[in-house]
């Protein structure tokens, strides 16, 4: 591991000032010499592997602002401070009551220990676990732009079928982000050029020709809060995650579903798909297919077909298309059967 300087900023503005400099706009945050650390569950792992090589870490756990550690719920929003731990949010009874999808996307992610460590801000910024990205002896356009992609013709069972490019097929593995993108969440961002609010759907970038640029953030920008609007579909919502083993594994396929129903008819559906795409994946085609329809097995199947119409499988991951469709159909029908 590259030796690094460790510092403890005491406020958001101090942390941003310490991270800003000419590099902060030139280099994507993941490649910057100065990096923020909160839970460290992803960053420490990638520093050990030599995938990420910061020479300076700024510890966000010493930031003083109380709002960073608070969950605030009112009539129409849930607001998570960026330093709230996954486990705390998953165990919050009001979060679960108001929006089971949010609570379950956290409960079924990682393990009890990791959820006690990982911050929500860091969780949404977690990087892919593509085996070729993790092991630095392989070519990887995300880790080393222009070096090629070993996954294309390699062992690509875990890889994405949606949102891929000729440069990268790495899966975005997070679960919480699927709930956030389905529920029209926003993130509050603070940086040296001021504050901004960004639609969660615009936080992550599809790989395209530049898979090394993963988010819309600059290296001196911090996520300070995540806000989820509460709406008629929030309480009738569910996260279904299908894995190689029952627990503590990344999704092979998952579905985040929230439904606003008028009797048996769908007034509005919110759908996101995990384990199958390169970024948190809103399935708008599936939502449109359900709009105004009676939700039953046939219409759910039509929605699933629409969701995967543009899927591009590789040698070992074609199974994710039928698995992803079946996961979505089951999630839709189970969510329909919930009380609104």
């Amino acid at each position: 591991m590259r030796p690094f300087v460790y510092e403890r900023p005491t406020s958001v503005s101090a942390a941003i000032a310490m991270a800003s400099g000419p590099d902060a706009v030139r280099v994507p945050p993941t490649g910057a010499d100065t990096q923020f650390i909160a839970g460290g569950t992803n960053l420490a792992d990638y520093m050990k592997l030599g995938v990420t090589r910061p020479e300076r870490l700024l510890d966000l756990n010493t930031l003083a602002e109380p709002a960073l550690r608070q969950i605030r719920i009112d009539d129409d929003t849930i607001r998570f401070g960026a330093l709230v731990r996954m486990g705390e949010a998953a165990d919050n009874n009001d979060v679960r009551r108001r929006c089971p999808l949010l609570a379950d996307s956290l409960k079924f992610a990682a393990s009890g220990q990791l959820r006690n460590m990982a911050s929500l801000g860091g969780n949404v910024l977690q990087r892919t676990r593509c085996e070729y990205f993790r092991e630095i002896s392989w070519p990887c356009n995300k880790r080393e732009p222009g070096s090629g992609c070993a996954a294309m013709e390699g062992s690509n069972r875990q890889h994405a079928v949606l949102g891929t490019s000729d440069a990268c097929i790495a899966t975005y593995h997070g679960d919480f982000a699927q709930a956030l993108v389905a529920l029209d969440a926003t993130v509050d961002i603070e940086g040296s050029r001021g504050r901004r609010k960004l639609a969660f759907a615009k936080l992550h970038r599809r790989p395209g020709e530049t898979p090394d640029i993963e988010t819309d953030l600059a290296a001196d920008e911090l996520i300070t809060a995540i806000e989820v609007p509460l709406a008629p579909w929030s309480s009738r919502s569910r996260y279904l995650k299908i894995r190689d083993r029952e627990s503590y594994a990344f999704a092979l396929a998952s579905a985040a579903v929230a439904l606003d129903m008028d009797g048996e008819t769908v007034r509005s559906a919110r759908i996101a798909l995990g384990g199958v795409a390169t970024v948190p994946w809103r399935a708008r085609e599936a939502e449109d297919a359900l709009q105004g329809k009676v939700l039953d097995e046939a219409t759910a199947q039509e929605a699933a077909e629409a969701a995967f119409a543009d899927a591009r499988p590789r040698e070992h991951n074609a199974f994710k298309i039928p698995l992803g469709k079946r996961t979505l159909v089951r999630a839709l029908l189970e969510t329909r059967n919930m009380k609104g």
Partner: protein
Amino acid sequence: MSDAKMSSGLSRRMFMTASVSAAAVMPLANSPTRAAQPESAKPAEPRDLSAVSIRVNKQAYNLALDNRTSLLDALRDHVGLTGTKKGCDHGQCGACTVLIDGKRVLSCLSFAVMNQGREITTVEGLASTDGELHPVQQAFIDHDAFQCGYCTPGQIMSAIGCINEGHAGSEDDIREYMSGNLCRCAAYPNIVAAIVQARDETRRA
């Protein structure tokens, strides 16, 4: 550690611990420029050692550590408590689980320097001073909840966290919330039974 003690009948574990501590202390003695600096001194260099004060099992330790040192390595190689095990060292197996301020975490993914002022509990800190085992330790023995034993300290620490969090309500809950602790011997049914017993005893207490 003294030469006289080294030459006498030392156990392998004691010898290894002694050697490692000696190696860890040497840079401090030989290169004073790399010793821990007060915060106001010259700008920090990546290879500077940091002063880290932590409490482990209710005892204070003042350490001078390379920033790269994981909490796990600090506990094993610098504090000398080897009960906490290194399995994968990448947050995948749970063998290194400890409690920080009462919450279960993975010590392999936590840089020691980030734990300034924290209270760490390891498996060595569970039994009472008169030797009476913690209810979870006793339950693991009662139910034969291990074979090789390598994952056991992590399982026990994680089980304490799981029970304290209120996530040991049913056997299904225990399986879900203990899934971060792998056991290659597959003693899982016994581990679940042990946690059920410990949970009930803790509730009665």
